[in-house]
């Protein structure tokens, strides 16, 4: 048919898919054709995140590729068809589905299967491949934990069960136990060995881990070998252990280790390791030069790698070799791991058990905090060989880098894991990291690669992303990447570009100054006088926010309308299906029964999904764009105002009940919360702003996690600033103690306007403070001692904002012109037919793609 070189891949798991991606990146199409067998009924998905399937992630979320990826790239795939045998002479693969496919090069990416120890039972359990079959009546309650199908089966049996037991207390076993616990089961973990996670951590670490896990309600049974499974008395099964004790359970999940799936290779006569695994060399070639093996099924240098990143490396190597483009070789991989198990952080690095001859170790255990830290060092005492961290893993990155790069240890290696003193914390900066340090762990991008991309001309984060993929996964590394970029540029003598964007050669702070001092009132004037081009999604909302903070005009005024970000434009929060949520203000979280009922009535009338938010108020979801003014008309009529949940603005002032009711309350925290929420509502800030007031030091309002936090004392109020929840929590700093209300308000006014004046775009108060030279002492000087002589000015600016407040929704519903903007279509009264709701737990929610499809929305609308 054609003369292209034919590559056939058996197994479409994480590694098999990565291999195909590597080929796609190499533009294989002119010279190669690709066919792959996928035994599972789902295309490759993120097995590493499998457990999130129980937390609401869907198959689509877990899928590793966009819809249609294989078709678009001309990859032939046989879904649900298992390859059964390989005829190496004829170079043909035969499948269970009856296919016979010729190959020039064959790649085995068959992964592994969960090992199930032989256990006798009154009933006999059979395992074919890795799937359990039982010749009894309730086979659906004995499981393994490897595939989406397995999880579906576990979920189904959990709904009919109360107790769940996992056999195997390793990494996966504990992850599985957590899943069972979250499914509402009373959960047990049984392990043959004396402690948990014996592969990665030592006995002492095992004790600390066990204590933490039992704290969470999961029961741990160690040194128990199951010898018989019989029917139970109280529960479905009874597990009988060899020490004579027993345990009853409704569900059983085996997680007793994995074994490489080498059966097809074995049958074909390829070389297999003594304990299983398809033997490969550093080119990932098996004993047949036309057959490669990659991922968990492959055995390299006597080692199986049960993690995904070594598999990815192998995929890259095989792609290089097969296409003869690139020169990567497989030379082993680091098996260090860091993870969170049942809420406990655990990390294991290198030779964590200290098996190297003559190695010495140093450990530190804090029973109060429940942490355990250990390092293993070389006999000479100058190199780190391994480490274990439990309960706190901040040191993971540093220790791993030290081990991998054979860095010289500090004089007192113990300082690496002892509770951080300030000097020690300052120890490892970006500059001291070696080039091999992995900065982006999602994509395995090293410091060296990032530096190279800058050498090759990247000057922005965007360019770095394109060049290296760094920072395009979870985004957790973006700050480090940015710092590295700035450092590198500075070293090259390139001026680090702090311009807001290509349209304005100014920082946000400078633009704020220009607008305020020159009295500029709209974007067009600012652009004409100080910028160029037409603006963009970065400068427009930033300028809109500055204009609002200075002049406080109605934000939907014609000249401001196009500047507003998505949510501000509709004065509501856009949801994933293009509908909106509505959050009316409930100052301080205090609400009368009448208003609560009114809110309920309105939600019912418009069939909105209602939920209590994390900010002590009520969110109404599922409003279509064209319904917003109608719903708000109802809300305004009963006295509600905008809650600015859509704006970079004051969100909520959380309160605790305080002295009015609470036996410990020192002051009226609700009263103060209502007062300050009313005072600052509508204020536009560089990023969103949250506050809270607690009635005593028990801190029920969590004020120290807020941008502005106030805690009552017997003498007055303590003012805390620059706290943060969210991605990088930060405890607030005490700015001033025992204030009376007048000074308290004065200081908050000054604080807020100083933040508005000097922060970067989208910078919360916490990172803002971290970047201020002099830190909180500087803030105290400016705000309390007025060291810059601007206190009065700041107060005046705030007074203007307070005097010019208007409820944006009230103004909007009163204007027929503005209401027009909410129509879905400018030329029709139809509504968006792609917005479809279904019911769940008695309320609406957006339909998933599959549900829409079933409900008859055309495939094109759903999937294209």
């Amino acid at each position, binding site marked *: 048919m054609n003369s292209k070189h034919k590559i056939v891949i058996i197994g479409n798991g994480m590694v098999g898919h990565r291999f195909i991606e590597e080929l796609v990146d190499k533009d294989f199409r002119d010279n190669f054709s690709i066919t792959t067998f996928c035994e599972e009924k789902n295309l490759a998905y993120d097995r590493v995140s499998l457990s999130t399937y129980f937390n609401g992630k869907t198959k689509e979320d877990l899928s590793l590729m966009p819809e249609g990826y294989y078709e678009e790239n001309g990859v032939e795939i046989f879904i649900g068809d298992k390859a059964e045998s390989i005829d190496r002479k004829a170079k043909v693969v035969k499948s269970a589905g009856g296919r016979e496919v010729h190959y020039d090069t064959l790649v085995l990416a068959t992964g592994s299967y969960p090992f199930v120890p032989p256990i006798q039972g009154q009933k006999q359990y059979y395992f074919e491949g890795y799937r359990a079959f039982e010749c009894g009546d309730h086979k659906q309650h004995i499981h393994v934990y490897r595939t989406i199908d397995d999880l579906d089966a576990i979920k189904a049996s959990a709904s009919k069960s109360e107790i769940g037991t996992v056999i195997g207390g390793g990494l996966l076993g504990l992850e599985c136990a957590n899943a069972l616990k979250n499914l509402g089961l009373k959960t047990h973990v049984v392990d043959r060995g004396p402690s948990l996670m014996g592969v990665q951590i030592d006995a002492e670490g095992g004790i600390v881990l066990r204590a933490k896990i039992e704290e969470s309600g999961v029961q741990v049974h160690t040194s128990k070998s199951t010898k018989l499974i019989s029917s139970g008395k109280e529960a479905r099964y009874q597990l009988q252990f060899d020490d004579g004790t027993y345990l009853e359970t409704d569900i059983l999940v085996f997680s007793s280790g994995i074994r490489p799936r080498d059966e097809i290779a074995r049958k074909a006569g390829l070389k297999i390791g003594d304990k299983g695994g398809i033997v490969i060399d550093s080119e990932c070639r098996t004993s047949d030069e036309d057959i490669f093996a990659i991922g968990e099924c492959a055995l390299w240098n006597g080692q199986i790698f049960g993690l995904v990143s070594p598999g990815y490396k192998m995929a890259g190597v095989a792609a290089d070799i097969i296409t003869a483009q690139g020169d990567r070789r497989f030379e082993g991989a680091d098996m260090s791991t860091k993870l969170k198990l049942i809420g406990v952080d655990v990390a294991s690095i290198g030779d964590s058990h200290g098996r190297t001859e003559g190695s010495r170790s140093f450990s530190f255990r804090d029973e109060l905090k429940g942490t355990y830290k250990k390092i293993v060092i070389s006999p000479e005492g100058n190199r780190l060989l391994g480490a274990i961290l439990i309960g706190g893993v901040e040191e993971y990155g540093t220790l791993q880098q030290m081990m991998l790069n054979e860095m010289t240890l500090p004089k007192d290696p113990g300082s690496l894991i002892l509770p951080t003193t300030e000097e020690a914390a300052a120890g490892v900066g970006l500059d001291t990291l070696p080039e091999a340090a992995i900065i982006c762990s999602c994509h395995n991008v090293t410091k060296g690669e990032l530096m190279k991309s800058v050498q090759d001309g990247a000057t922005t984060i965007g360019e770095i992303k394109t060049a290296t993929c760094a920072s395009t996964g979870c985004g957790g590394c973006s700050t480090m990447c940015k710092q590295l970029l700035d450092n590198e540029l500075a070293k090259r003598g390139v001026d680090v570009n702090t311009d807001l964007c290509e349209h304005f050669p100014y920082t946000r702070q400078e633009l704020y100054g220009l607008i305020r001092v020159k009295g500029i009132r709209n974007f067009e004037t600012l652009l004409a006088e100080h910028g160029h081009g037409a603006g963009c999604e970065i400068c427009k909302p930033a300028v809109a926010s500055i204009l609002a903070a200075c002049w406080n005009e109605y934000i939907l005024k*014609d000249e401001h309308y196009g500047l507003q970000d998505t949510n501000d434009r509709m004065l509501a929060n856009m949801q994933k299906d293009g509908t909106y949520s509505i959050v009316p203000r409930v100052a301080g979280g205090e609400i009368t029964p009448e208003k609560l009922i009114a809110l309920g009535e309105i939600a019912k009338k418009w069939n909105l999904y209602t939920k209590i938010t994390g900010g002590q108020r009520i969110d109404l979801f599922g409003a279509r764009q064209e319904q917003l003014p109608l719903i708000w008309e109802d809300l305004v009529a009963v006295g509600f105002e905008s809650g600015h949940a859509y704006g970079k603005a004051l969100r909520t002032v959380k309160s605790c009940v305080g002295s009015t009711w609470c036996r410990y309350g020192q002051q009226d925290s609700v009263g103060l919360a209502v007062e300050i929420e009313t005072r600052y509502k509508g204020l536009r800030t560089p990023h969103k702003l949250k506050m809270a007031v607690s009635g005593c030091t028990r801190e029920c309002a969590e004020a120290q996690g807020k941008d502005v936090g106030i805690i009552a004392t017997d003498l007055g109020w303590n003012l805390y600033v620059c706290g943060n929840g969210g991605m990088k929590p930060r405890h607030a700093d005490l700015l001033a103690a025992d204030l009376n209300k007048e000074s308290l308000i004065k200081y908050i006014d000054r604080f807020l306007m100083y933040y508005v004046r000097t922060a970067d775009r989208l910078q919360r108060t916490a990172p803002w403070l971290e970047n201020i030279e002099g830190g909180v002492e500087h803030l105290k000087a400016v705000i309390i001692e007025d060291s810059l002589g601007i206190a009065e000015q700041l107060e005046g600016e705030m007074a203007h904002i307070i005097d010019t407040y208007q409820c944006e929704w009230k103004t909007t519903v009163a204007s027929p012109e503005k209401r027009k903007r909410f129509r879905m279509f*400018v030329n029709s009264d139809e509504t968006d037919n*792609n917005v479809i709701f279904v019911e769940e737990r008695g309320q609406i929610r957006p339909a998933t793609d599959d549900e829409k499809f079933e409900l008859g929305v055309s495939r094109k609308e759903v999937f294209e």
Partner: protein
Amino acid sequence: MKKVAETTYNKICAMNDIPHNAGVCALVDGKQIALFRIGDKNELYAISNYDPFSKANVISRGIVGTMGEIPKVVSPIYKQQFNLTNGQCIDNPKVSIPTYPIREQGGAIYVSAIENC
């Protein structure tokens, strides 16, 4: 660009119904099309309202601007940028969305539902 026969144009709205430097959505022969009016010269653009990344009909609600000389709109959900002249996604060369012929005559806006190619 393919020339589209005049008869396929539909009258949609008045020029002023499209907010300046922003967009609205029109329903043309059953298709959702985002219309934008930009700059001193009232440049007009018509582009699909469907955002392939979020699978929601939201493009008309995006912020418009320029990247160098290229006029663009930014999807309001996950912020991908699209070239308004040809629908090309600027962040992902593999993705583009349809654009449509649009013109103004006598203060009214006319749009065709037959994609530009």
